[in-house]
């Protein structure tokens, strides 16, 4: 009996190992296939435009000319605005919840923030159109998009920051307090060195999310063509918004150009994530 059982176990072990391996392989395979087919379909426009695809400001599908610079700019600029607005708030909330708030208040705040994270982006987008751009007179602009994206990434950054901050050993915090440090000095001296890397990672993940957001950005960014400016009140455009807006009626070359935008976005997101990891790794040492 015992031998039998062991045999079965070995079987189950092998099966599990292969199943787990297959799952992991499928994820990588899907990612590689997506990258490959997308890159393949982006070739016609890159062939035609060359590097100008990334440096030209002219996006004229009717003319067969595609320059993605304004959309690259819009994506990076709105994401930067979003991160600049969201990070201080997120850190504040995370520190408040973990270090300052009375215990009974922590659970409700965390619950509300998590709720903010599950609101569908189209709801934020519509709210942005109706309230931010019309009621508050921000119009549809880089800034409106940045504010909406900031609201969307705040719960993500907060929840990661909270988890990171909570990993600070209690003993070190108590040691700081025992030495006569104020709460602020304890945060600066004990919590910050411990969570620096994790906080950078949280920020980068928020950045990645802000760059890829489509529908909310498409609704509030203004969809203007050729805009490369620091004026945050000007209407602009971003890569995902252009793809969403123009795909339906695009002809072959135009579609290829939109796919090339998607590939570019894909690459930028990967680079940002790899950068985040590198920073996290380095600051761990």
């Amino acid at each position, binding site marked *: 009996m015992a031998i039998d059982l062991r045999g079965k176990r070995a079987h189950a072990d092998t099966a599990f190992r292969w199943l787990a391996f297959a799952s992991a392989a499928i994820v990588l395979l899907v990612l590689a296939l997506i990258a490959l087919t997308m890159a393949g379909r982006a070739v016609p426009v890159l062939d035609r435009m060359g590097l100008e695809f990334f440096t030209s400001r*002219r*996006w*004229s*599908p*009717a*003319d067969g*000319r595609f320059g993605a610079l*304004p959309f690259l700019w819009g994506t990076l600029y709105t994401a930067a605005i979003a991160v600049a607005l969201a990070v201080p708030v997120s850190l504040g909330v995370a520190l408040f919840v973990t270090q300052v708030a009375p215990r009974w208040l922590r659970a409700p705040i965390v619950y509300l923030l998590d709720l903010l994270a599950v609101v569908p982006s189209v709801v934020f987008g519509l709210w942005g159109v109706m309230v931010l751009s*019309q009621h508050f007179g921000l119009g*549809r602009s880089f800034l409106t998009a940045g504010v909406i994206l900031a609201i969307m990434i705040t719960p993500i950054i907060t929840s990661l920051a909270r988890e990171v901050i909570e990993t600070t050993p209690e003993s070190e915090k108590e040691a700081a307090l025992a030495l006569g440090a104020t709460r602020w000095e304890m945060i600066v001296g004990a919590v910050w060195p411990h969570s620096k890397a994790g906080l950078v990672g949280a920020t980068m993940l928020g950045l990645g999310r802000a760059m890829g957001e489509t*529908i909310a950005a*498409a*609704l509030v960014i*203004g*969809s*203007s*063509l*050729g*805009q490369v400016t620091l004026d945050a009140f*000007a*209407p602009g455009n971003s890569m995902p918004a252009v793809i*969403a*807006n*123009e*795909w*339906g*009626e*695009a*002809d072959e070359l*135009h579609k290829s150009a939109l796919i090339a935008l998607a590939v570019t976005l894909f690459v930028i997101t990967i680079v940002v994530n790899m950068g985040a990891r590198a920073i996290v790794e380095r600051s761990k040492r």
Partner: protein
Amino acid sequence: MKTWIALFAVLLAGCGKKTSGPGGSSVTLNGSGSTFQKSFQEVAIEGFGKANPGITINYGGGGSGKGRQDFADLVTDYGCTDSPYKPDDKAKAKGGELLYVPILLGAITVSYNVDGLDTLQLSAETIAKIFQRDIQKWNDPAIAADNPGATLPDAGIVVAHRSDGSGTTHQFTMFLDAAASGTWKLKSGSTVEWSADTQAGNGNGGVAQIIQSTKNSIGYVDLPDAKASGLKFAAVKNAAGKYIAPSAAAAQAAGDGVEIKDDLTFVSVNAKGEAAYPITAPTWCMVYTKPADKAKGAALKKYFEFMVGDAQKLVPEIDYAPLPKPLQDKALAAVAKIQT
């Protein structure tokens, strides 16, 4: 964005009616495409459903590009579009030989919002200059020349256009390309290179909303949406040199003056004829000559006969123009070619 809405609509339609007729002879037809004729599809489907309870029809909208793609890939049973396939793409349609059936004509207005200016006349040249920002003030001499005696304000013009790729943009720019060929530099297409200092709205409704809420603005909006938003619109100078206000009748007059090709495709912008409104857009539905499924084929033939036949009476109610008689006869002859 329209694509997502359409997808959602298709999903909804899929969850909805699944009841089959008592004899089990129920047929469901799916179509997608042109949003320009979506309101017509809605009234036509309603009217058709009353007389043919065994046939359920779902129209997903989603834009002409989606309509052509879905139909070519056999995702839908019929597709509707405001512009025909390019020759290469037509050959890729998986269901074989296809028919273009003209459905209706519609006027695209040049709508504006200027206090105290209740009538406005514009020539193609002037419209071209306004939309490519060569003219930036309402009291520009070119606008004044089109409107003798009118008091034009010394105010900057705000130009509104579509943010999404659109058949309406395509027809509007085709008109400017044809009627103001020396002046218009942005060519024609579903998206053109609008200047950065212009505003963009999603769909006809989005552009109408910008015009409604922005003083001294101007934009192109299809007639039903312009009327629904209570916008003022310009009379546009046609090929015969007359200023014509957009209306269902003026759009139908444009249909009288077009040159119809053998496959029933035609261009209806800048049409000749004294009463023709020059920014008139056509729209077609497409069906395969030999539908693979016989039951569906018979239902499709019936529905197409209804669209170009009895349903034409419903067209003026929704501010579109029915097909002129000669075109309607040709459309009926085309529908007769559907083999069942």
